[in-house]
């Protein structure tokens, strides 16, 4: 009989941390190729379109970076939160909160031109932070499960936004349920002429560096990690779990809020119902693929930006439904989670003859034969 055995390992080598997400992605693509076959398309062709469309021209390549901008920020938001085991599944709602704040500020005629962008960033971040603090307070004060509240609050924010768009914020010019455009002066500067690449990407990259520094070089980052790993030990050492959770939530919400600011200031210049096609949820997948490492979030976000933009091209060319990119996200999340077992365990295949080899704690029942 042959069985799988898991042995605890001391520490994961660096190469493994890079190899794992890549392995998880390959596994994901392998699994998803069955869907492409079901759709009657050629696997190689479909994947070629998926991954090459985004690089088929200067415009498309830059568009991928535009797409990656909110994803980096929501990925960071989730990575920070999950480190403290604050289960923020609400980046989606926090993003909308930031976007609405930005649209509100960006449309104020009374504000001086120079103040518009800084204020949009500041208020958007604060709005996201406030929306994330709500579930954090509910958790620390009333012990309400944060997963459920952050999820439910996404719906609350979405309906609040659509109610505004249908009422006071309805664009008087078009009559559509979209908010009026922000002022020209509030639009984010474009970094590359004749593209949509805007200031947001610099904000996102700076945020990744900032979060990395915060997590690895500051006392707050130390506390966030300690509270996430062992709240009892952290409290015993004198850290206030409640305060650390609140700080984490505020930071996480602010990052998600900035994602919304970028979309309003740099891409849409207004708020509308389809502002976020699930950037908050994709952020979860990105954060996990990055192993919750802030610097890893950047390539992971670019990967999914490629998948999301490439899916359109793939769909047009091969007829495979564009929703393949959603399936890829789900499978990638599960694959990466499973792959992370390798950072803690070493997997051995054991056969009947292997009884002389050192045995190890198995995850589940051992299957190997016992020699009498």
């Amino acid at each position, binding site marked *: 009989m042959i069985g799988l055995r898991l042995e605890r390992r001391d520490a994961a080598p660096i190469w493994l941390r890079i190899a794992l997400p890549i392995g998880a992605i390959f596994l994901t693509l392998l699994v998803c190729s069955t*869907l492409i076959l*079901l*759709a009657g398309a050629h696997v190689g062709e479909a994947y070629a379109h998926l991954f090459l469309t985004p690089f088929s021209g200067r415009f498309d390549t830059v568009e991928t970076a535009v797409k990656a901008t909110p994803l980096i920020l929501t990925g960071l938001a989730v990575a920070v939160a999950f480190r403290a085991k604050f*289960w923020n*599944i609400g980046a989606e709602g926090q993003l909308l909160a930031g976007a609405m704040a930005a649209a509100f500020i960006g449309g104020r005629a009374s504000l001086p031109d120079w103040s518009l962008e800084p204020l949009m960033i500041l208020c958007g971040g604060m709005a996201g932070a406030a929306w994330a603090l709500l579930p954090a307070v*509910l958790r620390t004060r*009333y*012990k*309400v*499960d944060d*997963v*459920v*509240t952050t*999820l*439910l*609050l996404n*719906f*609350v924010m979405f*309906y*609040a936004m*659509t*109610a505004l768009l*249908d*009422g006071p914020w309805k664009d008087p010019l078009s009559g559509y349920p979209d908010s009026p455009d922000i002022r020209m002066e509030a639009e984010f500067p474009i970094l590359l002429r004749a593209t949509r690449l805007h200031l947001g990407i610099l904000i996102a990259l700076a945020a990744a560096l900032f979060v990395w520094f915060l997590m690895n070089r500051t006392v707050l980052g130390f506390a966030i990690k300690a509270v996430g790993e062992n709240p009892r030990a952290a409290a015993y050492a004198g850290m206030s779990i409640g305060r650390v959770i609140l700080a984490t939530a505020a930071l996480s919400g602010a990052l998600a809020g900035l994602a919304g600011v970028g979309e309003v200031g740099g891409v849409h210049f207004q708020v509308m119902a389809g502002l976020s096609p699930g950037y908050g*949820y994709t952020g*979860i*997948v990105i954060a*996990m693929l990055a192993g919750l490492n802030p610097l890893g979030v950047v390539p992971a976000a670019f990967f999914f930006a490629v998948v999301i933009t490439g899916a359109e091209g793939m769909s047009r060319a091969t007829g495979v*439904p*564009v*929703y*393949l*990119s*959603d*399936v*890829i*996200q*789900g*499978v990638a*999340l*599960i694959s990466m*989670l*499973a792959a*992370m*077992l390798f950072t803690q365990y070493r997997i051995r295949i054991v056969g009947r003859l292997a009884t002389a080899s050192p045995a190890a*704690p*198995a*995850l*589940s*029942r*051992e299957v190997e034969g016992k020699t009498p």
Partner: protein
Amino acid sequence: MDEIFGQVFQIGFFAALIRIATPLMLATIGELYAERSGVLNLGIEGTMLFGAMTGFTTAYFTGSLWLGVAAAMGAGVAMGLIMGLTTVTLGLSQHVSGIGVTLLATGLAFFFYRLIFGQPSAPPNVKSFQPLPLPLLSEIPFVGPVLFNQFALSYLALLLVPATAFLLYRTPWGLALRTVGENPRAADAAGVNVAIMRYQALIISGALMGTAGAFLSMAQFNAFTFGVVSGRGWICIALVVFGQWSPWKSALGALLFGFIDALQLRLQAGGMFHLPYQLFLMMPFVLTILAMALVSRNARAPAALLVPFRKEER
């Protein structure tokens, strides 16, 4: 005010309440099985959607609604098995696995719907389940039309509650399941196979969530839309907490929720309050959060919820 009262609380209102509560009861009881075994099944939202899509599609092509329900159950079971693989066999984070299953199931539902139906101008529909009046019982004034002129699946959902209570509290299987959820090591020492119990719970859980989805696309509505579940699954997670992990109280929570939802529909349709309809849609979510805030401090989840069980570890 009397006028509003009279307009709202008619027989139709209470019948609608049961109808709205049906999918919630099915999915909430499904979640309850999983949580009583120690697994938080956050795959619920996606599982319901995938069930709704599978059930609808099967019914559309076979013409049999019940075959659709069976397919939806199968789809739910498949998702339950994935959840079992990740959380039971591999012992991975239940939070992240559940979100993963929801993303996956949602993606699959969208993918296959688009693959099968393309982008039609008018969404395809089926002739949905019709109310099944029970002979004699439906003749009882008031109670009859409210309780006994419902969909077959609603009767099933109502019967599911005492059946679940019996299974959990009066049978060796239920005792084993509850023990697994409280202290898997104790269950293991008593000769109960923890992994098998948790898989069974996740299979039941997935089947009921799939059925709940089928109810949405084949009874409550007659078509599958991408927003057919729209947060109902997450509300069921809250209902289990609100119901303190008891089948009776959780089902009561579902009925209470049905009441609120039916009320907002009436108020919205009655046009008595000139508020954007989105605020009515938001109301159930806000009330659910408030209810959670009220009960959570004293809530006592199964002790082994979220804790993976690893047999041999030192």
